[in-house]
C-alpha cells in the first residue's frame, strides 16, 4: 500500500503569532494598507481582540472611522471584514454609519449594510425612525427590511409597521411590511394588513400578499 506522505505529526508550519497591534494603528492600516490582504487583516484584528466590543465602543471614532473606510473600499473581502467588525462592535454609532449606506448608489454596499444592520439587531432600532422619515421610498423599504429582523422585540416597531400599512403612500413600502409580517406576524396584525389591502385595490399583488399573510398568521384552531 502506498503511504500518504505527510509531515511528521505536529509539524504544521504556523504563522508566527505577532503581538496585537493597537486599534489606532489598525484603523490607519485600514485606510492606507497597501494590499487588500493587509486591510482585511487589520479590520479582522480589530474584531478579534478579546475586549473588542468594549474597547472599540469606548473609542467612538472607531465606528465612524470604520464606516468611512467602508465607503472608500472597493475590495469585496475587505468590505466584508469591515462589516464583521462593525457587527461585533454593535453600537449606535456603528449602526448609524451603516444606515448611511442605505442611500448608496452601490447596490452591493446597500445590501451589505442591510445585512449588517439586521445582524446588529435591536441596537439598529435607533436608526429606524430617521430612515422611515426619508422621502425616498426605497430607503423606507430598506428600513422595513432591517426592522424585520427584530420588530417583535419592540412594541414601537410593530406600531411603525402598522402605521406604514395604514398610511405610507408608496405601495412597495407597505408590501415590505406585509413580507415582514409573513415571517413574524400574529393575529393582531390582521386589521392593519386589511387596511393596506383596502388602500391599493388596483394592485393584484397587494390582495394576494395580504390574503396569504392573513392566512399564515391566524392560529390553526381559529379557523
Amino acid at each position: 500500500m502506498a503511504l500518504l506522505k505527510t509531515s511528521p505529526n505536529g509539524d504544521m508550519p504556523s504563522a508566527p503569532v505577532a503581538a496585537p497591534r493597537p486599534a489606532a494603528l489598525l484603523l490607519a492600516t485600514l485606510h492606507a494598507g497597501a494590499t487588500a490582504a493587509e486591510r482585511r487583516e487589520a479590520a479582522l484584528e480589530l474584531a478579534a481582540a478579546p475586549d473588542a466590543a468594549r474597547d472599540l465602543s469606548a473609542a467612538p471614532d472607531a465606528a465612524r472611522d470604520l464606516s468611512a473606510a467602508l465607503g472608500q473600499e472597493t475590495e469585496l473581502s475587505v468590505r466584508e471584514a469591515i462589516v464583521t467588525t462593525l457587527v461585533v462592535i454593535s453600537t449606535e454609532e456603528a449602526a448609524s454609519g451603516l444606515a448611511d449606506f442605505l442611500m448608496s448608489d452601490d447596490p452591493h454596499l446597500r445590501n451589505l449594510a442591510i445585512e449588517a444592520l439586521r445582524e446588529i439587531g435591536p441596537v439598529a432600532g435607533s436608526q429606524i425612525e430617521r430612515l422611515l422619515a426619508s422621502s425616498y421610498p426605497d430607503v423606507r423599504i430598506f428600513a422595513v427590511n432591517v426592522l424585520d429582523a427584530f420588530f417583535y422585540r419592540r412594541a414601537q416597531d410593530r406600531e411603525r409597521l402598522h402605521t406604514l400599512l395604514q398610511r405610507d403612500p408608496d405601495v412597495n413600502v407597505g408590501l415590505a411590511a406585509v413580507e415582514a409580517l409573513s415571517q413574524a406576524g400574529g393575529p393582531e396584525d390582521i386589521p392593519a394588513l386589511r387596511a393596506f389591502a383596502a388602500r391599493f385595490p388596483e394592485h393584484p399583488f397587494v390582495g394576494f400578499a395580504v390574503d396569504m399573510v392573513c392566512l399564515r398568521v391566524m392560529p390553526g384552531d381559529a379557523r
Partner: protein
Amino acid sequence: MTEPAKRALVVDDATTVRMYHRGILEGAGFVVEEAMNGMEGLERALSAAEPPDLLLVDVNMPRMDGYAFLRAVRAEPALCSIPAVMISTEREVADADRAFEAGANLFLVKPVRPDVLGRCARALAGAGRDIST
C-alpha cells in the same frame, strides 16, 4: 401537440413575491424553481439537470444582489444566453440601464401585473404547454 414545459427560476428574497410570481408563471405553463438570493439562484441554475429557460430576478437581496447574479450568469457558458427579466422598485432610467448592462433582457417595475408578467415570460421563453389565455 405539447412540448416539455419550460423552466423558470424566480430569484427574490421575499416569500410573498416568490409565491406570487410562481403562481403567474405556472399559469403561463412554466415549471418554477425558487431561490432566496443571487448566490442560491446561481447554485440552482448551475446544478439543474437542464438550465432554466427564464430567469426572474429581484434587485435587492442579501448575499448576492440581482446585478451581481446576472453578471455571474452571463459569465457562465452554460447559462449565458438565458433570457432574464429584472424586477425592481427602482424607477429611474439609470437603474434600467444598469439592469441591461448587467445582462437583463427586460426590466419591470414592482408590483407587476399578472397579465404583463405572463405575456413577457411567454414572449421571452415560450411556454411548452397549450394555454388558452
